[in-house]
C-alpha cells in the first residue's frame, strides 16, 4: 500500500517533468521490468531493448497513467507485455540459450554456481519450449509478487483463463524437468 502510494506520487512528479522521480522509479522497478521481458522473450538483448522502450514510454507518457484505475505495477507490466509481444512478432525463433549472456547473479562458490547454472539452464530450456502465453503466465506469477488476479489483469484475461495457462505450463514443465530436488 505504501509502495503503491509512493509510486503514484512519483508518477505525478514524473508527469510534471521531474527526472529525479523518474530515476527513483527506474531504481525501484527496472529489475522486475527486465526480468519479465527477459522471461517472455527468452532473449537478453531484446529484453533490454524492451526495458528501455518501457521506461521511455513511462517518461514521455506519464500523463496517461491513472492512479485510480490500476496499480502502478499492473500498468507498467501491461506495457512490458505489449512491448514484448510486439517485439516477439518481429523476431526470428529464439537463438540457442548458449548464445545468451548469463544474467548477473550473486557470486556463490564454484560448486554451487555450477549447480545453479545447470538448474537455470534446464529451466530456461524447458520454459523456452512453452507457448508464449504460458511462458508469460509463468513469468508473471513465478516471483509470487503478483496475485493470479493481478497477473490476469496484466494479460487481459479472466482469472480462470490465466489459471488454465498455469496448469498447462506447470504440467509441461514437470514432464520436462522431472525431479528438481
Amino acid at each position: 500500500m505504501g509502495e503503491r502510494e509512493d509510486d503514484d506520487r512519483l508518477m505525478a512528479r514524473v508527469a510534471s517533468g521531474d527526472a529525479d522521480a523518474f530515476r527513483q522509479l527506474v531504481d525501484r522497478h527496472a529489475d522486475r521490468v527486465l526480468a519479465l521481458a527477459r522471461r517472455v522473450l527468452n532473449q537478453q538483448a531484446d529484453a533490454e531493448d524492451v526495458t528501455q522502450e518501457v521506461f521511455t514510454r513511462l517518461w514521455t507518457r506519464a500523463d496517461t497513467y491513472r492512479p485510480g484505475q490500476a496499480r502502478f505495477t499492473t500498468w507498467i507490466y501491461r506495457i512490458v507485455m505489449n512491448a514484448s509481444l510486439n517485439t516477439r512478432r518481429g523476431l526470428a525463433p529464439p537463438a540457442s540459450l548458449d548464445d545468451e549472456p548469463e544474467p548477473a547473479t550473486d557470486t556463490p562458490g564454484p560448486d554451487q554456481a555450477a549447480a545453479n547454472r545447470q538448474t537455470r539452464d534446464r529451466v530456461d530450456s524447458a520454459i523456452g519450449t512453452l507457448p508464449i502465453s504460458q511462458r508469460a503466465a509463468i513469468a508473471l506469477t513465478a516471483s509470487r509478487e503478483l496475485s493470479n488476479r493481478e497477473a490476469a489483469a496484466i494479460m487481459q484475461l479472466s482469472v480462470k483463463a490465466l489459471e488454465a495457462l498455469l496448469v498447462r505450463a506447470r504440467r509441461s514443465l514437470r514432464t520436462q524437468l522431472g525431479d528438481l530436488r
Partner: protein
Amino acid sequence: MTPERFQTLLDRRGITITVWPWHDRLAARRLLAKSADARNRLAKAQAMDAALGEWASCPVEPTLRDRLAAIPDRHPVSIRPASAGHEPIRPLWWAGGALATASLLTGLVLGSTLFAPAEDVVDIAGLAYGDTYLTELSQ
C-alpha cells in the same frame, strides 16, 4: 480430495496452501496428513517454485541502468502542471441540479404561455414589458 485434484490446485493456485479457499485448504491438509503421494507432490511443486523463482530474477546491469537514467536527457518533455492528468474526475453534481432547475423554469414558462388562456398570456407579457407592450398589443 484426490492427489490428482491436489496437484491441479498446486498448479493453479501455487504452493502457499494457506491462501487457498478454506474448503480446499481443509481438504488439502487432510490429504497431506494421510497421503505420502500428496506430500511428495507438494515437495516437488516447492522445488519447481524455487527454480522458477530463481529463473524469474534478472538484475539490471549497470550499463543498462545508466541508459535508463539518461532517458530524461535524451527525451526532453515539456513541463506540465504538477497535477496534469492526475486529477480525479469529479462528478459535476451541481451541473445536474442547474440543468434540472433550468428545465423546470423553461417548462413553467412554456406551459404558462402555450397552454394558458390568451388574456393570461398578455398579463404575463405585460409584467415583463409594462404598459407600452399592452398598449401596442391592444392597437
